[in-house]
């Protein structure tokens, strides 16, 4: 199935969990947060949350700023 992560299209296996996606992307570190189709999913739900075809994932992290 096809999803987008930060507007970048990618093809991933069906019924992938958020946890597994972030592991693939190497972004399971602390300090990141994400939303699927603009709905924020808390870290505790990443393991059980299954992605669907066409999902749009926003992945953010903290950076320097004033």
């Amino acid at each position: 199935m096809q999803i987008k992560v930060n507007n970048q299209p990618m093809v991933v296996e069906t019924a992938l969990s958020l946890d597994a996606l972030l592991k693939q992307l190497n972004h399971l570190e602390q300090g990141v947060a994400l939303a699927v189709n603009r709905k924020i999913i808390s870290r505790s739900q990443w393991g059980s949350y299954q992605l669907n075809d066409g999902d749009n994932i926003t992945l953010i992290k903290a950076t320097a700023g004033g």
Partner: protein
Amino acid sequence: MLKIADKTFSSRLFTGTGKFSNSQLMADAIIASGSELVTMALKRVDLNEQQDNILGPLLDSQLEHNLNLLPNTSGARNAEEAIYAAQLAREALGTHFVKIEIHPDPKYLLPDPIETLKACETLSAMGFAVLPYVHADPVLCKRLEEVGVAAVMPLGSPIGSNLGLKTKDFIQIIIEQSSVPVVVDAGIGSPSDAALAMEMGADAVLVNSAIAVARDPVQMAIAFKDAVIAGRRAFKAGLGGRSLQAKASSPLTAFLDDF
């Protein structure tokens, strides 16, 4: 001690993490400043880029130095985006503190008061400790207080300009009227600007660029720390009144009249 929402701070100098030339220097300067509240921004993870870990050294020493995090919503152009950013920040950093920054215009980065008020009302109702970055507008600050913000952060001059307290007279009114802490944010360019804000009765100041872009950021951080302590002490000691005429500080007895 300064109390904002449910946290108390022994330092009245808040700092930002932007513009430092490297992450270790940032951590060293912020720790030297004694600051206990540190701002940071959010960004989308760039999947094509190597992971940057600019906040790494600072976050590693977070517990040891009692550093609290204050994520900002910089990049948000309206209330809806700021509310979304605040919720992402809470997830990412595990804090309910948020600095609302909504500045649609990149030239002067002046905050949009209408969108800021809307965002603050919603986020305060959601249980966030909201610290809005605003123009030095006493009426707006009272309205923000009514919707439940934890503090107000009026600007001295545009972000990063180092122009000092161009809004001084209005900040004075805000301080006089406010029943939430007043944190002077933006434009503080030198330790004397920070001392002045504290002498006027500000509860704290937020300094980023002036420390980050100094030739020696660690020494400048210490200078700001000292200035904030001096300014606060002077405020509490009560400044003497001003007068256009001289008021003698030595006795004017005519002891030389014999000559």
